[in-house]
């Protein structure tokens, strides 16, 4: 007798994420003006990038009005050599935490090229010429 050992199944849904009010301002500025737009809470002395509509420290309403970057500082980095399926990547993929000038928060993004990455290194944003309001409109950063 074959024993019933498992029942296959799935969660048959996909998700549509709208970027919200804060990120819409960020994405539109990135797409249309090629800039990195943040927002500042004067009371808390924190500039958030990407822009947010509320301060996480005091819940004050914020405006997306602070231009950050395009240069910044590499706060940490890693080189991925294995994909999410556990298989080796064709090309290693470098990722970094970048604190763009003017921002107090860091952004995770791609490190472009084959540089000798180091913490504290100065980097700069590389934008795509054709942009669609996506975080990938920012291709990544390269050494400044």
């Amino acid at each position, binding site marked *: *007798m*074959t*024993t*019933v*050992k*498992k*029942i*296959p*199944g*799935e*969660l*048959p*849904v*996909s*998700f*549509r*994420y*709208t*970027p*919200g*009010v*804060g*990120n*819409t301002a*960020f*994405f*539109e500025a990135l*797409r249309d003006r090629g800039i990195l737009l943040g927002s500042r809470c004067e009371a808390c002395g924190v500039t958030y990038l990407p822009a947010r*509509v*509320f301060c*996480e*420290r*005091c*819940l004050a*309403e914020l405006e997306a009005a602070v231009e950050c970057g395009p240069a910044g500082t590499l706060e940490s980095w890693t080189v991925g050599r294995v994909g999410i399926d556990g298989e080796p990547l064709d090309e290693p993929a470098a990722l970094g935490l970048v604190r763009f000038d003017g921002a107090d928060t860091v952004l995770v993004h791609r490190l472009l090229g084959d540089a000798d990455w180091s913490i504290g290194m100065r980097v700069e944003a590389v934008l795509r010429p054709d942009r669609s*309001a*996506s975080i990938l409109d920012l291709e990544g950063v390269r050494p400044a």
Partner: protein
Amino acid sequence: VGERVAVIGAGMTRFVRRAQETGKELSAIAARSALENAGITLDDVDAVCLTSAPDAFDGVHRKGDYLADGAGAFGKPYMRTYVGGGSGVFTAIQGWYTVASGMADVVLCVAEEKMSSCQPHPQGAFLTIFDNVIERPLGPNLLWIFALEMRRYMHAYGLSKRDIAAVAVKNKRNAADHPAALLGQADITIEDVLASEVLADPVQRLDVSPISDGAVAVVMVSEEAAKRLTDRPVWVQGVGWNLDTAYWTNRDLVYPEYVERAARMAYDMAGVTEPRKQIHVAEPYDPFDYKELHHLEGLQLFDKGKAPEAAAAGVTARDGDLPVCPSGGLLGVGNPIAAAGLMKIAELFWQLRGEAGARQVPGTPERGVAQAWGDLMQVGTVVVMGGEGGPAVTATREGTPPVGPVATSLDDTAFRAAAGAVEERLDLQYAWDPGEAMGAFLEGMRDGRVLATVCEQCGRTLVPPRKFCERCFRPTDTWTDVEAVGTVQTFSICHMRWDMVRLDPPELPAVIRLDGASEGGFLHKLGEVDPAAVTIDMAVEAVWKPLEDRAGSILDIAYFRPRDPALRNGAGA
């Protein structure tokens, strides 16, 4: 029990079908407006309690920490609780015990839901509440549960759809006075409800609350903080929560025991001995119109089966003897699941302070009860709240009830076109282990047998079989065979697939009680019968697939058909 706890502020977003705001942004709007309403700032808050229903609505599989910043939890003790649809009222219970225990003086409770993210329909996320092994293979639809329960309730008390539809009319009319409402409609009639599209008979479109996005927040404080911060506290007088059986088809579908138990717990704590005299305003959970009636009976506010005639007589109208859902409820204000529950707490707060504006119930309500319901439709959560008494505030304060500046509603086109929007599928496949008892049951199916286990202590014969008796909490004793014949407990004529694509012909889900099983029943479909010929208590028998097609699955029973050949129509399921 512990410290006295007061509610001193509440706020909410508008409830909308598709919000441009993220869940974080919705939470921040609600949290900020509750803090403003309480006259405090985030610095005054000692701890934050959050709730949000299934992660799969927002598509964020860590909603607790994801929503933390919008809920004002930065740098504070914080926890998300979750009991499905019961969550919104439960988060007020969480807030109560966080304060009553002495752990915090000022707590911000936030409830958020953003159901619009879930594509093609949030019912896809609800599929996970069905048993993966014996229910999911049948292709269930959330509406099945409600249709099956509603029909059983109507059958038990001889109710008509007209009796039920009156609740939808009352609540959508009440919601016309709520500035945050999604479906308020001052001129809706019973005929409108009865003429709306049949989804899963007896459930029609306007019997159901809408899919919604939104957030609500309340501020709960200790007695000492209340003295410092407000001259009109509303006290949490009692809380209760309770679970019924985890097998929903084994539940009493006519009467919500779980609500009665939760209500008795809350009433005992509040010193409420005669709820019909001592409760002046009620906000029971109303995701479907019949559920308001069901829950009013569970809350001991009406005798069993008597809520509908009281509703018809106007007792539950906003100006009736017991105003019920003066907010407009889930049916009118909207149903962003967890947020909708906390909206009921907010409504009691405003009603008991005399600040509900156009929705204010007459007189001076001294005490109210809010209730929600959820998990696999078997949890009851209840909160009793009371004001200080004293004169009602007849002059409505400007901006009350406070509704946050915006939840920006997008139509479907704008939602699809939103700049920066991302659509992703969680590409996961699951392999569920049936476990020992259910594995044996499924093997039995392959042999055309229905296997059950017996608990000798309580004497029950359990279908589906379990390795342990959940009542006696001991291993079951023996295996037995049950004949695959039984009676229809309740059924639906369902015209909708889970993604709300119409089915033609409709299908006939039913809860079937097998003759040899002790209680309740299990879920399957009916076949070889015209929908109009199906009746509750009809005797049915299993039709097995040919031996070579059986796979050790609940679907080895193709369907159940009438035992009386005269009732069969010769077609399949």
